[in-house]
């Protein structure tokens, strides 16, 4: 493929974090949504998945987190097979789910309850809310917040669980461009923060600029049943700028991959 040139070498940074082998999923009885999916994430890596609407990206994330068990294949975290859901792999849903009867703090704290002391939980929850830029809204109810604010609460909640892997399904789609941008860089600095337990992020996005901005590697999904039709390593220095000519090369490349074409 023409992408080979830009892919560069296949050598990797650090150890494998999340890995799946020959993953396939079908909703009971119907045909496979996707099949033979193999992907890996490495330490300190942000991996993006792109693909046309309805290819099964959200479903793939659910399977990766074992929120729905795979029909075929296996998922491994640090070499151990994942057989049940765990906070180690936290999913941030495409549709924002916050509990209407809980304040922001309580919505975040819910993942810590019964695990650590209440005071400590509150502390962590408040920190995370601060981290996503919602300081001052700790006692607000979701109803009193905009969609983007609620999404940030959901992200704070995922972070509070101190996951190794974070699966994010279109996390920035409800945000205005400015907030999205600042949150993108936040997410980025969290991933590369050595103190944090978060090792890699799998990001599903329709926004190719966002993907090129953030991702170290991109898997392109397509076909029916869907499979990985391409893997692109984004070899751009950070901080990345859209001004850079190479930036657009990557966007174009992804765009081409996503264009309808005959299955190979």
């Amino acid at each position: 493929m023409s992408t080979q040139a830009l892919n560069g070498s296949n050598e990797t940074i650090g150890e494998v974090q999340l890995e799946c082998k020959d993953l396939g999923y079908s909703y009971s009885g119907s045909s496979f949504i996707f099949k033979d999916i193999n992907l890996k994430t490495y330490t300190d890596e942000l991996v993006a998945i792109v693909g046309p609407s309805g290819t099964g990206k959200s479903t793939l994330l659910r399977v990766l987190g074992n929120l729905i068990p795979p029909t075929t294949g296996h998922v491994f975290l640090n070499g151990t097979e994942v057989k049940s859901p765990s906070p180690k792999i936290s999913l941030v849903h495409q549709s924002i789910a916050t509990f209407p009867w809980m304040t922001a703090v309580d919505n975040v704290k819910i993942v810590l309850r019964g695990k650590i002391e209440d005071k400590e939980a509150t502390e962590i929850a408040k920190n995370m809310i601060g981290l996503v830029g919602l300081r001052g809204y700790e006692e607000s109810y979701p109803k009193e917040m905009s969609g983007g604010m609620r999404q940030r609460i959901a992200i704070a909640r995922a972070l509070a669980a101190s996951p190794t892997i974070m699966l994010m399904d279109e996390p920035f789609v409800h945000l205005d461009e400015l907030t999205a941008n600042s949150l993108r860089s936040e997410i980025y600095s969290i991933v590369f923060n050595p103190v944090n337990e978060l090792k890699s992020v799998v990001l599903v996005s329709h926004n190719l600029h966002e993907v090129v901005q953030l991702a170290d590697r991109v898997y392109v999904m397509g076909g029916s049943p869907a499979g990985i039709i391409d893997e692109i390593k984004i070899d751009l220095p950070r901080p990345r700028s859209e001004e850079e000519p190479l930036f657009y090369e990557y966007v174009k490349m992804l765009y081409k991959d996503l264009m309808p074409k005959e299955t190979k």
Partner: protein
Amino acid sequence: MELTTITLATLASLSRVIVLILISIVSGWFLSYFAVKNRRFENIYISFVNIFESIPVIGFLPIVLIIFITGLGGTLGVEIAADFLVFDAIVWNIWIGQYQAFKTIPQHLIEVSENYNFGWWGKMRHLYIPFSYPRISSDIFPSFADALFYIMVSEVFSVGITSYKVFGIGTLIVQATSAGDLNSVYECLGILALGVVVITIVFGDFSKHAVAKYGLNTPTEIKRHFVWRPHIRKWRTVASPTFQFARYTTKMKTGRENIQTAMTKVRTSPSFERSGKYIGRAIAWLFLIFIGYSSIHVILSIPHSQWLGYFEQTPNLLYQMGIDYIRVFVVTVVSFAFAISLGYYLANHKKMSSTITPVIQTISAFPAPAYFPLVFAAMAPFLIHNIPFAETEIFVMILCFLGTFYYVFFGFWVGVRAIPTEFLELVGNYKIGFFTKMRRIILPATFPYLVTGLSSTINSAWGGLAVGEYWPNIYQNQTLQVHTGMMKVISAGLANNDVGIAAWTSLLFAVVVGVYSIVFTRNLMDLARKKYVIEEGIYAA
């Protein structure tokens, strides 16, 4: 007894129930539509329904029957009274459910329907009515069960030595049981069971389909092969554009929020609003006063010398009422515990649930009063021998439980199934502990269903007491009666032609219940409906 007679009687009773349910549903659609369109009507309507929903009119069963019988005369009186009681037992739940469904239709869907000029009927058909299916389906089953329970006990009614009856399976069973004609009893029960099973299956499929298809992103999978295929095809073509639209529109606000903003835009004067509420309350109070008045009317027809007796008995009557409150409380707590544990278990064991649920449904729909005499006959010798002190108490509790538990059970069960997938995944993802999950997620999420279910359970428990505390000739010539209990005072009073004491006691009960429901139940419901709406937790469903 002729098999044809039995079949006809079963059909007669079941049709009463079905027709009343249909009337409730259809009238509910119109009333709810007007309510969401007209602020003033909404206020009247909602306060009215709320008050009634929390009053156990069914607890006034004997006195209501008397009022209708004396007012309209024998058979017609019983027919209307029976229908009235059944209607009262089911209608409030259905109406309030429809209203809430209409109220939570996302604003963008309403805008779509207005944008494309659906017209009034088009909007009803394509949007409002389909949107109310999940709620109706959650209400329809317990309503059916409750209705059947009360139709059984109100088809025949005796005052003194006169017995009034209408044609129906309840009447046949009572006749056969008191005649000791067990074969006929079994035949009746068999045919009734058949009818109940058929209706349960139909309702069950409707409910499953409604939750899967018209609920917001629930885990229940949409089933393509539905028994009422022609209807469904119609529904599907009719509703799917809007629903797909709902699913794939991402940047929309939740319905309630928009409706609220939309509503604040509608100019309403506060006094206008308040007057609406007052009218609603006034109508509800009028009804209570009507019952009160009728009771007083009956009391006035009693010689003066007896009045004094009633006043003297009042403290004792209040004490008996207290005992009944304890009974209702116990039954409610047991039903609640049962509902939560079983409902939770079933929600987590899909395979189990698909086999057990229809069984529970059939059992709960099978009206306890119909077969209870047999339970009594079978258990009485054993209980009298082993626990003579609590024997009647146990019977009354069992009857109450059988007649009431399903309301809260099905409420909870439907509530759990209505929780959007994302939340369940969240619970699994973060390994939220059982206790936290129950206390902070499952119970609050099902709170609106639980409150409605509990309120109905409490109301039905009163009805159960009305039936069970005094049941003359329950089996051959035995009589089931408790030692202490207000409902017994009422029922026994009527049976012994002492209408005055029954009326006076009902009046006392009406006052207590009125105060209790307005102070307590209504506020609880308000809270549930304002704060605990899980569907609102999903942004961009």
